C-alpha cells in the first residue's frame, strides 16, 4: 500500500458503506421518509440475492405498503400484488417455476392484518418461498394506524392512548406462529437499528434464501424496521424507540432452522 502524504483532506469524500449501490437497484434514490428502516432492509435482500447468484433467477412478489415503491427501483422481475395476498401469488408462480427463487416483500399490516390467512396457509403447505416481513408495527403507508402487530401500549393514529389489550386485542407474533408449523423451514427475526444488527440480519436473509434453494419449505425473515413517521418520533429517535417498544415483544434471533437440527 502506498501512502500519499498530504496536508489537505482528500478531494473526493470517502465512500461510506451505504454509498455502494447493489446492482439490483436501478437507483439509490427513494421517496421514503428520512430515518425509515425499509430501504436498508430491502437493500440487504438485494445484496443477498446477488451474492447467492440468483440475480437472474428470482421473482419478487410485493405487497402494499411504503416498500411497494421499490418495484420501480429494484432491477428484479416483480409484481405488486393485492394487499395481503403475496404468499398466494408466490405459491402459484413457484409451483410452476420451481427453479426460480420466489420471494415476497410484505409489511406487518400486509401480512398479519390483511393477509394472515395467506401466510399461514402457505406455511401449512410448506411452499418453497422466502417471505420477507418488514415489521414496523404500523400501517406506515396510510399514516400510522394500528396493525395486528402493533405492540401493547403503542400509540398510533387509531390507538391514541396506546394499544390496549382489553380493547384492541393482543399483537400477533407471526414469526413464532409460522415457526410452530411443520411447513416452515427457517424463521428468524432481525432488525436494522444499528450496524451490528444490519450485518446479522443479512445472514438471516441469506439462510432464508438458502433454505428455499434447498427445497426445505417456507422461510420467513422478519425484519424490525424503523418508522419514525408512523410512530410520531423524530427521525433520529426511531432506532431507540423501536428497540424499546417493538424490540420487547419481538426478540431478535433465529426462531427455527430445520437444517440446523438435521
Amino acid at each position, binding site marked *: 500500500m502506498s501512502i500519499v502524504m498530504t496536508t489537505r483532506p482528500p478531494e473526493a469524500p470517502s465512500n461510506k458503506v451505504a454509498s455502494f449501490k447493489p446492482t*439490483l437497484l436501478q437507483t439509490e434514490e427513494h421517496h421514503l421518509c428520512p430515518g425509515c428502516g425499509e430501504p436498508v432492509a430491502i437493500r440487504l435482500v438485494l445484496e443477498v440475492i446477488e451474492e447467492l447468484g440468483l*440475480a437472474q433467477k428470482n421473482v419478487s412478489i410485493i405487497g402494499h405498503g411504503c416498500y411497494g415503491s421499490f418495484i420501480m427501483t429494484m432491477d428484479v422481475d416483480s409484481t*405488486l*400484488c*393485492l394487499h395481503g395476498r403475496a404468499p*398466494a401469488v408466490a405459491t*402459484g408462480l413457484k409451483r410452476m417455476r420451481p427453479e426460480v427463487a420466489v420471494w415476497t416483500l410484505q409489511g406487518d399490516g400486509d401480512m398479519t392484518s390483511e393477509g394472515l390467512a395467506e401466510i399461514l396457509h402457505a406455511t401449512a403447505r410448506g411452499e418453497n418461498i422466502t417471505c420477507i416481513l418488514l415489521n414496523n408495527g404500523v400501517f406506515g403507508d396510510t399514516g400510522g394506524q394500528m396493525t395486528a402487530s402493533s405492540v401493547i401500549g403503542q400509540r398510533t393514529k387509531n390507538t391514541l392512548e396506546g394499544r390496549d389489550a382489553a380493547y384492541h386485542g393482543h399483537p400477533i407474533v407471526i414469526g413464532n406462529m409460522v415457526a410452530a408449523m411443520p411447513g416452515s423451514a427457517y424463521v428468524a427475526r432481525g432488525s436494522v437499528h444499528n450496524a451490528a444488527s444490519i450485518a446479522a440480519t443479512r445472514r438471516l436473509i441469506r439462510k432464508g434464501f438458502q433454505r428455499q434453494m434447498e427445497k426445505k419449505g417456507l422461510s420467513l425473515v422478519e425484519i424490525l424496521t424503523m418508522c419514525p413517521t408512523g410512530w410520531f418520533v423524530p427521525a433520529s429517535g426511531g432506532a431507540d424507540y423501536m428497540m424499546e417498544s417493538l424490540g420487547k415483544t419481538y426478540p431478535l434471533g433465529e426462531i427455527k432452522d430445520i437444517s440446523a437440527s438435521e
Partner: protein
Amino acid sequence: MTMRLMDGSEAIVEAAIQAGLRFYAGYPMSPATELLEYMAEKLPHHEGVCINAATEIEGVNMALGAAAGGFRAASGSCGQGLALMQEAIAEAALNETPIVIFNMARNQQDYFQATRGGGWGDYRTITLAPKDLHEAVEHAQLAFHLADKYRVPVIFMGDNLLARTQMGTTLPQLDLEPLPPKDWQLDGTSGGTGKSRQIWTFGCGKTNDPGPGPSKHWERIAAKFDAIAEVEARHEQGFVDDAETLVIAFGSGGKFVEHVVREMRADGHKVGYFRPITLWPFPGDALEAASQDCKRVLVFELNAGQMIDDVKLNVRDRKLVKAIGGVSFDESGLNLGPLMDATVIRERIALAINGASQ
C-alpha cells in the same frame, strides 16, 4: 376423435387441459365442486398443478401468480365464491394478467357480477355462456385464447346442468390463430439486466424505463376493453327475419328457448330467438338488427331481471321489452328451478303474445 360419455365438469376440465391449462386453484362450492375434483385428479398427469385453496381469495390469487409466470391458469367457483374473487379479477384486468374463471353458477343471478366489472376500476370481463356441453368444450378453449390474446380475465359461465349432465362428447381442437410469445411473463431471468419485468396495476414502470403512470395506464386499459367490445361480441339467433316476437335467453336458458321457439314455429307462430354467447361484450348491434321489426321482445332469465338491462339498451324502444323469467331455484337453493322447463317457457311466451293481442 372418439366420442366419450363424460360428466359436464369432466369434459370441461379435459378441454381446458387440452387448451393448455396447467394451474388451477379452487375451493369447493356446489355445483363448481366437481370441476375442482377433476382438476385435482387430472392436472398432475399433465405436468400441471391443482391446489386446494383455503379460500376463493387465495385460490384466485394463486392463479394470478401462475399466470404471471406465463402459464395458463384458472380458478373457479360460483355466486358468493365469484364475489370473493372480484378484487382479484379486477386486478387481473388492470395489471393485464390473463386468467380464466370458471363460474359454474347455481342459477342465472351472477349475470351482473360477471358482466359489469364486479371489482374496482374501469374494466369488463369477457364472459362466455355456452348453451350446452358441445359449446362448453369449445368455450373452455376459447376462454384461454381470448385471455392470452388480450391479457384479460375471462369468465366461463356455466351452471349445474352443464356441470352435471352426462353427455357423449368429443373434444374438438379449435382452430385458433397463433398468439405471440409472452414476452411479459415473470420468469425471473431479467434481474440486473436493466430490463427487468414488471406486472403492476399502477403502470409506473421502472426508474430506467418509466411507464405511463396510473391515469394513462388505466385510460389505455379502458380503451382496450372498448376495442374488445367492438370485435368479440358473439351471438346466435334463429327465425328473426319475420319474427313478431323475439325471445332472448342465455346459457342453458338459451338452449331451452331455442327448442321452444322451434316448436312454436312448427305450429305457425311468428317467434324468433336470440342468444348472447358472450354476455360481455353484449351483442348489442346484432340484437338491435334482429329486433328491428319485432312487436315484442321477451327476456327469459332465471333471476329478477339482470340481462334485461342490456336488452333494453339495445332495442329501438325499451317499452317493447318484457321479462318472462324470474327467480327460480329447486328446493335446495343450489340449482336451477322449475322455471327452466320447456312447457313453462312456452306458456309464458304464449301468454305474452295472447295477453298483448287481447
